[in-house]
């Protein structure tokens, strides 16, 4: 089996800018089928930008992203639509449609992409709600759900088509520890039960160490390391040790630049 047979995502020489600012600097990595890959990094490290590029919501300056054999940067609309039917995305805030009930939100992809009858769609929706511990909530509006429930409802919608590939943006952010652990368990259950490849973007260490097969750590738009949980924990990189041990960055202060920033407001 060649490397491209095993891998479902390949990111090659990815460079992106917001205006003049370089956000992602020549990223290269691949994700194997059936793997849970966690992408970590602090605020502003570029992990959300990377996720948006993998979802083909943004166009990079250069480089390529190949998902399941499709170059998403250069793919035409039709190919992208086909690929996206094999992908599920759970957004940070759920991104449920506020004008629809939870059940209507979850069944939306099935109604659009399958010819199943309403009764079957209803059963499949309830199955996914059961899986997410949301049984009985299908007739509620999203505004009536808590933060954790919204995330789980978003996850139910993301997996309703049984995708090969699931992206999950910040599953634990803003949740209490018990709900966060429940979501982690759910991610592991999904991988085991449905054999999905799962990409999780998070900055929560505990969650990452619990679910990840491999972790890619980003710092300032560059990959600091990609490795297993043990490899990350044993890394000698100071930035990674600071992150693991929750130490503040020990930045060298240039007195001249500091005065310039204070007096002119510019770097």
């Amino acid at each position, binding site marked *: 089996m060649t490397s491209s047979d095993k891998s479902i995502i390949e990111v090659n020489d990815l460079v992106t800018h917001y205006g003049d600012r370089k956000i992602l600097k020549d990223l290269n990595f691949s994700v194997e089928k059936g793997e849970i890959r966690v992408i970590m990094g602090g605020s502003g490290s570029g992990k959300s930008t990377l996720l948006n590029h993998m979802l083909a*919501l943004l166009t990079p300056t250069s480089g390529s992203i190949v998902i399941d054999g499709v170059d998403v940067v250069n793919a035409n609309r039709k190919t992208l639509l086909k690929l*996206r039917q094999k992908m599920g*995305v759970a957004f940070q805030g759920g991104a449920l449609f*506020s004008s629809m009930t939870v059940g209507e939100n979850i069944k*939306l*992809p099935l109604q*659009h*992409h399958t010819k199943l009858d309403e009764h079957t769609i209803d059963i499949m929706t309830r199955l996914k709600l059961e899986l997410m511990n949301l049984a009985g909530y299908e007739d509620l509006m999203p505004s009536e759900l808590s933060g954790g429930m919204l995330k789980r409802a978003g996850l139910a919608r993301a997996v309703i088509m049984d995708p090969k590939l699931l992206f999950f943006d910040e599953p634990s952010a803003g949740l209490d520890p018990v709900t966060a652990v429940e979501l982690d368990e759910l991610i592991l259950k999904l991988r085991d039960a449905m054999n999905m490849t799962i990409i999780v973007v998070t900055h929560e260490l505990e969650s990452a160490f619990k679910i990840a097969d491999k972790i890619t750590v980003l710092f300032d738009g560059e990959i600091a390391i990609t490795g297993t949980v043990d490899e990350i924990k044993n890394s000698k990189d100071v930035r990674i040790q600071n992150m693991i041990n929750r130490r503040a960055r020990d930045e060298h202060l240039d007195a001249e630049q500091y005065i310039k920033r204070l007096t002119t407001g510019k770097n």
Partner: protein
Amino acid sequence: MLTVFKAKIEHLGGVGINIVESSGRLGLFLFNTLSRLWMYRFPLEETIKQLLFIGAKTVPLILISGLFTGMVVALQFYDTLIRFGSVDLLGAAVAMSLIRELGPVMAALMVIARVGSAACAEIGIMRNEQQFDALDCMAIDSYHYVMLPRLIAAIISVPLLTAMFDTFGIGGGYIVGVLIHGVSDGAYLVGMADTIIWNDVWMGIVKSFLFGLVIMCVCLAKGFNLHIEQKQSGAVGVSQATTQAVVLSAVLMLFVDYIVSSLML
């Protein structure tokens, strides 16, 4: 001095570029939305839902505003016509001004106030909450699923609402002219029927059709492009986009009104 002058020119240039960019985005938005008519199956169910919101639920507002507009127009015309001893022309004057001009414009303004602002705010919030990203990721076309039903519902609703506005306006004129000021009801109704020709009604229909298209296109596009056009995100961005949508749709509607009038008169 030269620096100040250069800065002014740069500012003007920036404004010019912004206008061209916004117009381009608006044109593209309209093209993308209408192109879904032949790319996909027509979204009948969603369009009916939007007809209920844009059309049916606006009816009470249209009837009340139509009635009062007709009454005030009749009062103004009565006051003028009585000076020339021509009150028999009241019915014709009220009907003509309502059918050709006031009906389409006032009904469109009511739709902007009740529906346009709400549509822009709803779409803007959907943009802020990543709901369009979610639709993209679910391989559901936003133009087809969200925009097209709203646009079609507005194009159907505004002419119908205008017709209701005209009818209640003529009724309001009847109340003021005939019932309050004692103008002969025969003169009011027959004068109206004799003066109004098919071309007047056709002008009202063309205007209200185009107003529906312009209003909804501007309001939806302002919400949809919120992340590109607004400097601030969040609630401030939505509020700014909504204000711009209401102002721009009203101004564009009046511009279209002038163009259609000058072409059809």
